[in-house]
């Protein structure tokens, strides 16, 4: 396997399974936020939520 092949399989792994994991985490956070649950405290000021 060349370095180019290795880069290609890493890209497939990141863009396939890796991205699906991120999407599940986003769905969880968006579900919580859009149902009106207040976000945990953050350090950026002047929140309107």
């Amino acid at each position, binding site marked *: 396997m*060349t370095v*180019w*092949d290795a*880069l*290609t399989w*890493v*890209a*497939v792994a*990141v*863009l*396939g399974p*890796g*991205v*699906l994991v*991120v*999407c599940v*985490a*986003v*769905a*969880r*956070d*968006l579900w919580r*936020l*859009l149902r009106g649950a207040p*976000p*945990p*405290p*953050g*350090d*950026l*000021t*002047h*929140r*309107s*939520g």
Partner: protein
Amino acid sequence: MPPLHPVDLVIVAVYLVAMIAVGALLAGRVKAYRDFFLAGRSLTTPILICTLVSSYYGLDALFGDSGDASREGVVVWFTYGRPYTLFLLAAALLLARRLRGIDALSLADLLGQRYGRSTQVAAAIASFLYALPVLAIMGLAAMGEVMFGVPLWMGACLGSAISVVYVAMGGVWADVLTDTVQFGIMCVSLAVALPYIMDAVGGFEGIHGALGDRAFAPLGGAPPLYTAAYALTAVSVFVEPLFYQRMLAARDTASIRNAFLWGILLWAAYDWATTAVGMAGGAMMTSGVLSPDTPRDQVLLRLVPLYLPVGLSGLFLGGCLAAAMSTVDSYFLIAAGNLVYDIYRPLARRDLDDRTLILYTRGAMLLSAAACILLSVYFERIKEAWAFMATILTSTLLVPTLASLLVPGRRAPLAGALATWGGLSAVVAFYAVLHVWGVPDPDLESRRMEVAGVTLLREYALFAAVPVSALGYLLGLALGRRP
């Protein structure tokens, strides 16, 4: 090119209807302008990853990078792409915590708070020009022509109209929600397509046989200064309006930093996938599978339906649409915000209530769409348009932004004004001179002129304009007074 199977068309239609439905569902939720523009400052790390990656990477990355890779090879990933990794890393580590305690809606608003109204307006003009999603619209028009046979102008209008509709209804909430779907589709579809295409071309051995050693040279064969000019456009990440808009909408600074670090990995993977597929397309043009006359920006689009089975072709096409629309919607929102909040509001009247601001911003999205379609007529190549827009943005905003966030001490309003207006004017003048007195350079697909034995290319504007901006800043600092 073979016509699309009905199953593929249904997949694309379902995707488009779903995007509009999201906007309609969220329309009633948005009441305050900060909610419309910054999602109540509640975005978490996973949401930021999705929205940053999908919005920042549109069809310019998908079609532009693959088109360049079909001709130039791995230099696209190494020399054009990886400087972005370095600058993004620096942005993640340096900028995020500097935004702590800043109450701004946009980068122009932030600069307005630091330097005053004149700087805010200049910054907003540069940000508006940059934010116009010309590249994505050019890509959408090409998609419409290649996949559905519709004229370029109609593809551009339809694509931008659908994106404007759902974001105008639901604001940034609709934007991030659709970005999530679009992020998943655009990445997974590319991950699925990549092995099919590499198998069809005979892997990298097949590509090497067709394109030779030159395609595998990380530094490529273009003049070093030309290559450096493209690599230096990466410095634009420090003043990328999308990043500031999303960072200011984040829940906290740790979420921003973590989102950038994960995003860097995803962007690099996406870059490599488009580079590899583009090189496969270049090999197929050499071997005659694709016509040698295929426009470079359309290589990927013409290649994929030849090798992907029914259903996956539709998924990939949806992925292309997702890549374009996630960019178009986010940048139309930013461009409209620049027009209304950063230019109209300070210049005309400051007492606009939230309802009026939202109404005007929705209208400004339509104006932005019209301006965008007009600009897309001027540039013939995606990379060419990108260089112009990144140069405008960087030359105008880099010096005052970095000085504002990273350098402690006094900030004279005159310094901000001279830096922004000086940088903006220098780029416009440079492009105007090359447009009037320069001659076409068919090899580099640019314009060039000789001055005292030195060859000037249009892409070199950055080298002249950033120093002008820096000089303006220093001059303003010397002459100006503290606010």
